[in-house]
């Protein structure tokens, strides 16, 4: 709470600093007029630079302090506690510290307060108070130092504009760093967890095992089969079904929209189709489970085929519908990007519209379309909700789309839901599965992006 006040004060000081810089540079510019060229930069830049010098270092120190202070105080109190109450287990220390913190902050605790606890709480409160005032003093000192330093640097030939530019550049670099570091962090943690999993199950058994049966075991030793192949085959089956639905329908939609539809129709149809992409996948899943599955089942019965209500077919079909806008929208963009001059050339040679599309537009757009299809495929592989609900969750290695299957994503969900010890192979396998999935989709995306980019270069 008091921290927020400090932040508010800081911001206020920065505003003042901005004005100081602004005014000083203006005054200087007016004075400098007589002799030679005025200030190097516009007054705003001097203001901004003073404000940044004033605020940025202070904020940094403030943040570091806030992160470090609690653990420092805690360590001091723990040291004092152990010297007075003898050695304790880490669990006892944790409980004691929680009580002490509550007492120190004035919340009060259940039960009587022992003298040792009271003393420790008092010590903690004292340290916190010292810490707080020191922090304010330090931050304010830095603020003033920065202010004076930057203020004095304002000279006609001081290139404030370039300095601000540099600060902005660093800020942008740090921002992009956040995204990259997060990705790297996720990958690293997945890799380390996967390695832990491989200490229980050999990679050979994992990648080439044909049985998926991760039995529960309290001993921590691996039991049952951890073969990924049944899951991959399920994933592949569902994805193939999905792409079989999505690619032809999506592509034809794209061609129709790009080449034949009147602008009016296109302006209505395109957003409507794209709405499909906005429907939450859980809705698709429910739709698959309640409508599509039973429908396929009854159709199968009518023509003498045994089709499970929850099957690779059901999940794949609905997923295919979900992917239609993905493919049609991307392909439509790519087909419209084929230059009009190529169409004109073909028409000018006496080709009909469909001949032009078949012989010129599609071949020219093909790399881009392939890219779109690959992107859609990587989405299909990573899709979870529809498959959880509609694929039947049967991790068996088989190739019949009418049967229930399970996919990698579904299995990850299964392994992590319920009461599980996160150190057991049953849980850790989720990381191995996740990493495998990540590598597959990453590969597909890289290939797709490469193809799309190569295609783009051709016309621009």
């Amino acid at each position, binding site marked *: 709470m008091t921290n927020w006040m400090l932040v508010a004060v800081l911001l206020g000081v920065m505003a003042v600093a901005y004005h100081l810089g602004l005014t000083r540079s203006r005054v200087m510019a007016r004075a400098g007029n007589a002799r030679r060229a005025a200030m190097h930069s516009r007054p705003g830049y001097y203001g901004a630079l003073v404000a940044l010098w004033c605020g940025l270092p202070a904020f940094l120190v403030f943040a570091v302090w806030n992160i470090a202070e609690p653990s420092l105080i805690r360590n001091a109190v723990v040291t004092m506690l152990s010297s007075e109450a003898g050695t304790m287990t880490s669990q006892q220390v944790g409980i004691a510290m929680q009580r002490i913190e509550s007492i120190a902050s004035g919340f009060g605790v259940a039960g009587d307060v022992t003298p040792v606890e009271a003393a420790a709480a008092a010590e903690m409160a004292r340290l916190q108070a010292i810490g707080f005032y020191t922090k304010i003093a330090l931050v304010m000192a830095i603020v003033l130092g920065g202010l004076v330093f930057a203020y004095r640097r304002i000279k006609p030939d001081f290139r404030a504009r370039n300095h601000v530019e540099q600060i902005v550049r660093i800020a942008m670099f740090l921002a992009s760093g956040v995204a990259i570091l997060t990705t790297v962090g996720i990958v690293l943690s997945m890799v380390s967890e996967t390695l832990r999993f491989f200490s229980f199950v050999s990679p050979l058994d994992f990648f080439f095992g044909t049985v998926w049966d991760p039995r529960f075991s309290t001993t921590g030793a691996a039991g049952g089969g951890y073969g990924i192949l049944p899951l991959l085959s399920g994933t592949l089956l569902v994805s193939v079904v999905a792409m079989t639905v999505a690619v032809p329908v999506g592509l034809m939609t794209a061609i129709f929209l790009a080449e034949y539809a009147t602008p009016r129709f296109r302006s209505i149809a395109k957003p409507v189709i794209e709405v499909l992409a906005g429907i939450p996948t859980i809705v698709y899943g429910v739709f698959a489970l309640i409508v599509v599955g039973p429908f396929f089942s009854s159709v199968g019965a009518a023509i003498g085929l045994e089709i499970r209500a929850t099957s690779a077919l059901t999940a794949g079909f609905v997923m295919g519908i979900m992917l239609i806008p993905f493919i049609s929208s991307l392909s439509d963009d790519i087909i419209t990007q084929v230059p009009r001059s190529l169409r*004109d*050339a*073909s*028409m*000018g*040679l*006496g080709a009909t519209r469909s001949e032009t599309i078949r012989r010129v537009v599609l071949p020219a757009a093909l790399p881009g379309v392939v890219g779109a299809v690959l992107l859609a495929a990587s989405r299909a592989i990573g899709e979870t909700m529809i498959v959880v609900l509609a694929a039947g969750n049967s991790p068996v290695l088989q190739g019949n789309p009418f049967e229930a299957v399970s996919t990698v994503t579904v299995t990850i969900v299964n392994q992590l839901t319920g009461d599980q010890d996160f150190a057991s192979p049953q849980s850790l396998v989720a990381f191995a599965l996740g990493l495998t999935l990540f590598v597959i989709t990453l590969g597909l995306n890289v290939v797709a992006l490469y193809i799309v980019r190569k295609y783009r270069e*051709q016309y621009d």
Partner: protein
Amino acid sequence: MNMANSQPGSMMTNTLGKAASQQMSREVTVSAQDVKVYYGDTQAIKGINLDIYRNEVIAFIGPSGCGKSTFLRVLNRMNDTIDGCRVEGKVTLDGEDIYDKSLDVVLLRARVGMVFQKPNPFPKSIFENIAYGPRLHGLASSKTDLEGIVESSLKRAGLWNEVKDRLDQPGTGLSGGQQQRLCIARTIAVSPEMILMDEPCSALDPIATAKVEELISELSREYTIAIVTHSMQQAARVSHRTAYFHLGDLIEVNATDKVFTQPEHELTEAYITGRFG
């Protein structure tokens, strides 16, 4: 560049002398009568009458937006591909009304070829670029036949010696000027009667432009050519007659020599001497 002349067997050297291109016969190929074109509500062309004679090169000049390109596109009905474009009046090709309902547009475009402003080879091999049209219209009965068409088209476009060793390479890999001559060769490959050129050199450097211009005068022995150009010097160099368009009207059509020394209309004079606007 003078490929055709260095090839004794090629068609144009013997059958048609240079005289044919200079002394044009007065046989009318295309006749436009009171042609009006509308884009939606705006009128782009206001009633143009123009006869184009066999084996002549006629240049259409005029300031931007004067309707010269639009009129060119009337002649092979390329305007049909533009939404909201409406053509009135009568245009005949060898006496046949090309806007008649019974006429097949696709066949018309094979008879009246078109070369565009920007070289637009298909992203296919050089061979396939030329073979595209003949394949569409079934002009070749065998592979050898097709190869013959490709070779003779490239020769007539003066490109054969430059590309004969790399027919399987993409047409988009050629230089701009070569690409444009490839596009011309592609047009010739379907044996049109007439070739329309819409600012064919505006994207080319002067050397490539000179080569294309040379090609145009070679081709005029066999084909009727209508060319839209922004370069008055180009019109003066390559054409037999020049038509000056202004705000959708045809102001003046005359022998090019006359238009560029003694234009009849003051608008033409103002335009070609650079006194416009």
